[in-house]
C-alpha cells in the first residue's frame, strides 16, 4: 500500500508557491524550472545571472534538505539507466515545444488561469498516466 500524505504535500506546495511568488514580485519572472534552465543553454547577455543564482539556490537547497529529509531523496524506481536517458530526452524535447513543465504550467500557469496551461497540464498528466500503465503492464521498466 502507498502512504497517503496530506500535510507535507500541502506545506511543500505552499513553499513552492511562495518561491514562485517571490521570483515574480522581485524579478517579474515566471518560476518555470525548465524555462529557467533552458535559458542557460542559449545564454543572452543580461538574462543569465538570475537563472544561475536561482538554480544555485535550488541545487544547494537539495544538498541541505538531504540532511534533514533523506527519505525524500530515494531515487529507486526499478527503471534502468537507459530508461532514465530516454526519460531525459523526452522531457527535454517536450518542455521546449510545450513551453513548460510541472512548475511553469502546473503552478504559475494554472494560477493565472492561462488557457495554454489548462490544456498542457491535463495533457502531460494524462499521457504520463498512460505511459506508467503501459510500463507496469508490459514490464518495460528495464528494456533500454
Amino acid at each position, binding site marked *: 500500500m502507498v502512504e497517503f500524505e496530506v500535510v507535507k504535500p500541502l506545506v*511543500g*506546495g505552499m513553499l*513552492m508557491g511562495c518561491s514562485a511568488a517571490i521570483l515574480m514580485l522581485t524579478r517579474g519572472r515566471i518560476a518555470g524550472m525548465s524555462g529557467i534552465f533552458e535559458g542557460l543553454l542559449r545564454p543572452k547577455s543580461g538574462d543569465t545571472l538570475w537563472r544561475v543564482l536561482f538554480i544555485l539556490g535550488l541545487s544547494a*537547497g*537539495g544538498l541541505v534538505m538531504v540532511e534533514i529529509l533523506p527519505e525524500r531523496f530515494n531515487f529507486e524506481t526499478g527503471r534502468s539507466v537507459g530508461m532514465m536517458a530516454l526519460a*531525459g530526452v523526452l522531457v527535454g524535447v517536450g518542455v521546449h515545444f510545450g513551453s513548460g513543465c510541472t512548475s511553469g504550467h502546473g503552478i504559475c500557469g494554472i494560477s493565472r488561469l492561462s488557457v495554454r496551461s489548462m490544456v498542457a497540464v491535463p495533457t502531460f498528466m494524462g499521457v504520463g498516466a498512460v505511459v506508467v500503465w503501459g510500463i507496469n503492464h508490459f514490464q518495460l521498466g528495464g528494456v533500454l
Partner: protein
Amino acid sequence: MKYLFTILAGAMFAVGITIGGMTVPSKVLNFLDVTGNWDPSLMLVMVGAIGVYAVMFYLIMPKMEKPLFDEKFKLPTKSNIDLPLILGAATFGAGWGVGGFCPGAALTSSLLLDTSVLVFILFMIVGMYGAMFLQPLLAKK
C-alpha cells in the same frame, strides 16, 4: 539584495519540492499510476502551490506597477492552443512517466550526484538542444 532574493527563491523551491515529495520518483510514478497503486497526495502539492501563487497574482501583483528589482513583469505572451503545445506537453508527460522526474525535481537532486539523476539531466540537455535545432526546420514546413 536582488541576488539574495533570487537565491532564496531557488532554495525555498527546493525545500518545498522536497517536503512535497516530488523528488521521490517512485512517489511520482504512483501518482501517475491511476489504475494501480494510485497515490493522489501530489495533487495536494499543486493545490498548496496554486493557492499561494493565485493570492500573489490576483491580490498583490495588481497593486504593483513593476517588480521590486526589474522594469516590468514578464508574463508569457502566447495564448493560442497550437500543435507544438499539445505534442510538447504529451512528450513531456511521456518522459515524466518513464523516469518519474520533472526538471525541478531533477535539478533539486542534482548535487547529490546520483547516476540516474545525472543521466536524466544530461539527456534532458540533449533533448533541449535537439528541440532548439529541430524547431526552425519544422517551422519551414
